[in-house]
């Protein structure tokens, strides 16, 4: 950060030319795509409205899926038991690169997933989001609601090659999985300076007239301990490429790591895979939890050592089932 700061300072001192002055105050700094990667330009809702080749009934179903995606809180108490919407993490309608665009799930599944150690369908992947990120349960496989969600994903993938896996801007990731040395206090400072203005001093988020505007980052209203976002590298990459809102790439890599660690050092609803013992659960799912602070001691507290499922009246949705083909 210091280096970057010094360079920009030097640049502004040395060359006060109109060219420099015309540079944006807040540039959009997103990672470069790698050579040979497939880059997808997902269609917009205007494209959908104009496309006469799509049957009106299908349009209706796609738009229903989109509406569930954008305003997932309409499913509060049915499928969703926290304050999030799909678009809270999959920003820009699930279309945007580096903001976990959702269409690759439609072109790369079914596939084996490390998280649950079996081959997953697109519906199962969506069920995972509902179970962990939304601290809830999924619409039933094959249901109208699930069909609408699937239709939205597949329509966004229009034109993308099936099983092409070398995708530019997939996920959030470019920071890699190697953590730098992390300091809770440093993360707390980054949080206070950059995040608290919207998400609140205690990560509680902000709402207006009962509608969530800035989602809570921890506590009962946020994602549970089994969500991908609890992995520090996932949160760090999301933050680096999407936050603060409108300012992607404005934090240094280190600031993103530190604040991701700070946010994920706070309590949140229990991992639905909880066995009744946090250390046992951490060990059982260590391929996932080696990237989280769950079941570790932070500031003298063993994180995740509780039975709190937030406002969700159950621990594990029935839909989370192993599959075998023996």
């Amino acid at each position, binding site marked *: 950060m210091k280096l970057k700061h010094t360079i920009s300072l030097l640049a502004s001192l040395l060359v006060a030319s109109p060219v420099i002055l015309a540079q944006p105050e807040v540039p959009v700094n997103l990672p470069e795509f790698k050579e040979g990667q497939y880059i997808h330009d997902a269609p917009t809702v205007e494209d959908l409205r104009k496309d006469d080749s799509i049957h009106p009934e299908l349009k209706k179903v796609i738009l229903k899926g989109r509406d569930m995606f954008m305003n997932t809180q309409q499913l509060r108490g049915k499928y969703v038991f926290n304050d999030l919407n799909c678009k809270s993490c999959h920003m820009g309608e699930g279309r945007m690169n580096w903001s976990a665009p959702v269409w690759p799930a439609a072109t790369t599944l079914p596939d084996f997933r490390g998280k649950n150690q079996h081959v997953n369908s697109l519906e199962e992947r969506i069920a995972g989001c509902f179970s962990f990120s939304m601290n809830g349960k999924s619409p039933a496989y094959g249901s109208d609601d699930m069909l609408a969600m699937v239709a939205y994903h597949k329509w966004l993938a229009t034109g993308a090659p099936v099983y092409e896996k070398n995708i530019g801007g997939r996920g959030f990731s470019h920071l890699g999985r190697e953590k730098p040395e992390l300091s809770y206090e440093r993360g707390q400072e980054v949080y206070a300076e950059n995040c608290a203005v919207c998400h609140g001093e205690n990560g509680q988020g902000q709402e*207006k*007239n009962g509608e969530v505007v800035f989602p809570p980052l921890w506590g009962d209203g946020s994602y549970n301990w089994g969500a991908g976002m609890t992995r520090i590298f996932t949160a760090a990459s999301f933050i680096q490429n999407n936050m603060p809102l409108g300012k992607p790439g404005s934090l240094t890599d280190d600031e993103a790591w530190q604040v991701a660690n700070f946010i994920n050092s706070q309590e949140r609803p229990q991992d639905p895979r909880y066995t009744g013992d946090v250390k046992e659960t951490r060990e059982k799912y260590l391929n996932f939890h080696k990237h989280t602070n769950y079941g570790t001691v932070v500031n003298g507290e063993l994180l995740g050592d509780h039975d709190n499922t937030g406002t969700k009246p159950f621990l594990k949705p029935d839909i989370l089932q192993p599959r075998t083909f023996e």
Partner: protein
Amino acid sequence: MTTLSRMILAGALIGLATGATAAESDPERGAQLAAQGDGSGAPCVACHSADGSGNNAAGFPRLAGLDSAYLAKQMLDYNAGERVSPVMQPNINNFDEQQIRDLAAYYAAMPVPQTTTTADVGEDVLALGEKLANQGDWDNYIPPCSSCHGPGNRGVGEIFPAIAGQHPNYIRSQINAWKNNQRNNDPNQLMTAVAERLTEEQIDAVAAYLGSQSATTE
């Protein structure tokens, strides 16, 4: 500064701020000040009207019903040179912080007047404004206004003011001020980032749309 001393300082500042706004700000004193002015220049009511509705033609914003802390910050910023307006500054530069908080409390508590301005633009322009306000233009990294200004763009908390039903001329002038680096008092440059990506056409459209919306849910 160490983290601890920073936290103590932050705590002390928060304590002061809440003390000043919650315990002492007096809307009735604010009402008198709004009518009298600061002793030089024009009183508030001359431009912002007795009902706090402002004036679209002149580009004077509606103040009635806006968040008290937001209003106070804007006036304090004028007096500290953090926000610049040759029209506004001379009229409030003699107010002290207490008087500013009284004024802010007065305007915040006022009933919201009907300030909706019928848009004199084409349907397609209005549709573009509606899209920017509620869906954004993500391909140009412009999040929707509502992602910070809240449901119906009627404001969120102390930082993000209500912009629905605000005067379109005022909205346009402020977006342009951010875009042209003449207004810089937004926290973390959150508004600067968006304003400088908006085209003139988009600014006109979003100002017309927001101005045509009701400031209240009724």
